[in-house]
């Protein structure tokens, strides 16, 4: 496996309403990290939409997730409402992505940069496609609420599935640092897979 060339990439879906963007997306990110955060931890959960979603009790990570999800919330909900409430995007809601990259530190192989030391290579990327629904009636809210829970459960189980199916690409853990794998969380990365994400970013 040569993660450097082809990082594993996984796509997840999140369906949220404006008020639950941070909770749901944060829950999904925590779930991802729960399976990629190799320091010892006591498994914890948080209630999200009636589900017990894993929670990685790490201050730094939690802060980062909160920061990025707020950023996502801003772009997807607030900006969206400003520019055009509901035009192209189905359901009138906004869309956005948030992606997590896991990196490994490698000794730089390039001989001309010898002094620089380590470089970080992405070996896995998770992209969460977030769809924001804006229910306007009670009926819609109820439906959206059900859909959110259903989608979240599906996403969590998909994560479970993925992490069980794809283990071999996890780089060897060679460091004794707290977290062997640095990570990045990016909101609405334009270079992302396809056009729609880019579009959103452009708005």
């Amino acid at each position, binding site marked *: 496996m040569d993660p450097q060339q082809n990082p594993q990439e996984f796509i997840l879906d999140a369906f949220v309403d404006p008020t639950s963007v941070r909770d749901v997306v944060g829950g999904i990110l925590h779930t991802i990290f729960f399976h990629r955060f*190799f320091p*010892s931890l006591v*498994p914890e*959960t948080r209630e999200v939409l009636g589900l017990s979603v*894993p929670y990685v009790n790490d201050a730094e990570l939690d802060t980062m997730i909160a920061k990025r999800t707020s950023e996502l919330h801003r772009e997807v909900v607030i900006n969206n409402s400003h520019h055009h409430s509901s035009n192209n995007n189905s*359901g009138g809601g906004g869309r956005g992505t948030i992606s997590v990259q896991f990196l490994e530190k490698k000794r730089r192989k390039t001989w001309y940069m010898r002094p620089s030391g380590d470089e970080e290579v992405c070996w896995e990327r998770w992209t969460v496609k977030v769809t924001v629904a804006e229910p306007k009636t009670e009926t819609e809210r109820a439906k959206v609420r059900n859909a959110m829970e*259903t989608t979240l459960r599906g996403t*969590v189980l998909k994560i479970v599935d993925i992490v069980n199916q794809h283990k071999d690409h996890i780089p060897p853990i060679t460091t004794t640092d707290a977290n062997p794998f640095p990570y990045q969380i990016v909101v609405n990365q334009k270079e992302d897979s396809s056009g729609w994400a880019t579009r959103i970013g452009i708005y």
Partner: protein
Amino acid sequence: MHQTPRQPPRSASPATSPSKPPARVNTPMEGRPRTTSGAADRNEDRTQDAAGPSKESMKKLDQIVQSRPQNCFMKAGTLVMQNRLRLTPVTLQTGEKRMSRWFQTDTDDFEEFRDEFRIYKQCSGFDNRPPPLFIEIYLDTSRLKNGQSLVIVDEDNKRHDVAEAMSSWDSTGSNSGRQDKHANTQIILERWRAELKGPTPNLPGDFGPLLATIYKKAIVLFRSIFTAVGVFPASKLFRGAKIKGSHPALQLRARISTNETLSSGFDALRSPLTERPSGDITTDYMFGSLELPVGRFYVSVSYRNNCTFQVAETESLLSSRISLAISDDLFKPSLPRRGVGRRDYSTEVGSLPSHRHALDATDNQQRYGSLSTFHGEGPLGTSPISALKSIKAPGSDTTSPPDSRPASVEVPAHSLPIRPSITGSTASARRPSVSFQPFKHGSLSGSPVPRLHHDTSSSPHSIGRGTPTGNALTQPRNRSSLTAGMPASLRGGPPPATETPPAAGSPRPSATGRFGSSFSHRRNRASYGGASRAGDDDQISSGKQSASSSLAQPGSGLLNEVGGGGSSGSFQTDDDNIQEFLKMIDSKKTLQSFEPSKKGETSAKRTNAQLSRFHLMRESNNALTESMNSSVQLQRSSSSSSRQLANVPGMSASSSPGKPLSPHTPHTPAVPSRLSEGFSADHGIPTRGQKGRSIYPLSPRAYPHVRRCSSVAQQNRALVDEEEAEVHRSTSLGAGDGEAPSISALLSQQTATNDGAAESPMLEPPTELATAASSDMLPRGSSSVERESRPPAGLFAGLSSSPQRGRFSFGTGRGHSTPQSGNSSLTGPSNRYGRGYARGGASGIGAIGGHVDETEEEPLLFDMSELGQNMNRRSLEEARGGASLGSNDRGGYESSRGRRW
């Protein structure tokens, strides 16, 4: 086997709560220190290896091998049970809790199940392979007190007594020599299975690196188990148990064993707890396997998809059942069925009692079966179809004689016909002879006849007839008025007991409509779907389809609320909500309101089915039809065309022209003769007509506002009302009759002056109902008009289609009867009118209306469907809705065909 983990009241539960192992409070930073030690898998592995008596390679190997499986089983079991049970952590003398830090996932050790796990500690990867580990999570109903029942709430929010389902297990599963004692009281929710499989591999000389990789993967595996445990359905039960100090019967228990308890095919995990479970009962999931030096470690789980259990007082359960049954359209035989039977009887009195009664007895049974099947099969699935079919049939019947529709619809509810159709062949066979009579009588007996007379008497109709254009306008109006009046009259009539209800009834319906309104969209959709389905099923009767759709739409609000027979699934949920709400308010009232509505729907379906059967009968019995036609013709010609025509075609103001229309005429003939009879009888009740007129005003308004559409809406309303009214009808039969005539009068009045001061009050309520029903969610008064327009469109479409239907269905029969030149010529114009309506209403308006409603909701729905897999039903409904729309269009097309004919 300790089946019941200790349930120490110990609030010390912190231990139980996985999230917070008390001993070690995780400050975020805490992880770090550990990580330093444990972060490097290799390090830890090595340390452990080294820590053991691993001086010799073999010993080292064995230690690794031995410890891995053991810890794997222990960890897996712990991760599962700590999120399912209240466990007692093992407390060390130091006061700290003993923890297992294997796999970078810290868990408390607990007192429970020590013996069970001891086996695994003694196992060796090589010599003594560990047996598979089975953990069954279950509920124990033996903890229920007397008067309490464990119920499971299905997707439609219906509650099912678990004990009933479990009792059925005994018969099926008693054979298994398994732990029968438990089978009766234990509901297995999850069965976890962990096992070490595969031959002992040849271990490489140095497996240090291998261990690191294994360990790394093991971390992922066990954490994923923890993750999954949190989102499986049973998780909510555990959380509920933690929070509420819930009922002991709702506290999960676990049983650990080393072999599968299943000795035979019976499996308490996979046995259904509801009569007709929708979807899979259980889900199997296998976690990734973990390659160990000694084999592969597998973890898999099977869990119940529906773990929505509640403890209910038996009494409340009974009452809920009743309500459910009501809401479900008599899903369960008990109350609703009875009510239906009563109504039918009462209605019969009005129409043709004797025949109907006889039929009713059979019919009732059939109904039950049919109804149950509908519901049972699943709201969406088969039942809808049947419902649709039935609906279509009625629509077709009604179409032929516009008047007949309302009457027919009502009649079916009252009389047997509907039932037979639903029940199927048997009913049809019986009915043929009888059924004809009931229909005719029913329709005739219904308000329509009197109305017809009045109409005829009232010049307006005759005039309208004379002038096709005028007729066209008047006809639709008349029809609508008639229908509205008819239902009302019919409703009013029969049930004496319910007389009081009528007054209350009207308010109730409106209320229900309001309630339903929010849900109405769903229902509407469902109704649409149903209609579409019906249409699909019965291509023959395009009109029927449209009619069904129209019916559904108009009624959608009310009908949906009431029966929602067509779209039972979606409706049910709504109904349930509504029911709950109603219960909150007044259980009895709610029941009544629901019942009537249900009845109405069912009745409508029945009527449709009956009508369809009639058509079939006609077709099959061409001779009969011919004779009928001849009789009809005779009647037409002989009997003052105005009255008879009014009666028969009378439905349509354009009776004279309408008769010409082959479809109408054929129907009318058969019915008309009897109708004419009925008319004569009805004529005796002129006073009623006056009353009815007063009532009618309502319809008139609707007409002016809604126009044709309004008429349709009114019909729908009427239908809904009819249901309610049915009960009332028995009592208010006279009134009903009056109404019928009044309708004609109303029509005339409408034509003359739409404004009726007296009418306004009456009209308003219907409008509200219609609005509630039609307007999906909006209870606005003002909006009512707009809404009405929508629903009406649907209704119109239905109406328009209905005539077409009639044409089609009657085709054969008509062919015989219609040959007469005069009729044909007449039909031509009438057809034109009908066409115009059909076009505008069915294809155009209907489609639009449908789209409007759907579009409003659709975006979400689509999103939902896309996003949520679980949303299947909804998505299906949506799809149905879409289909229904399509069907409407189809209806329009078909109708066009019919027109061409």
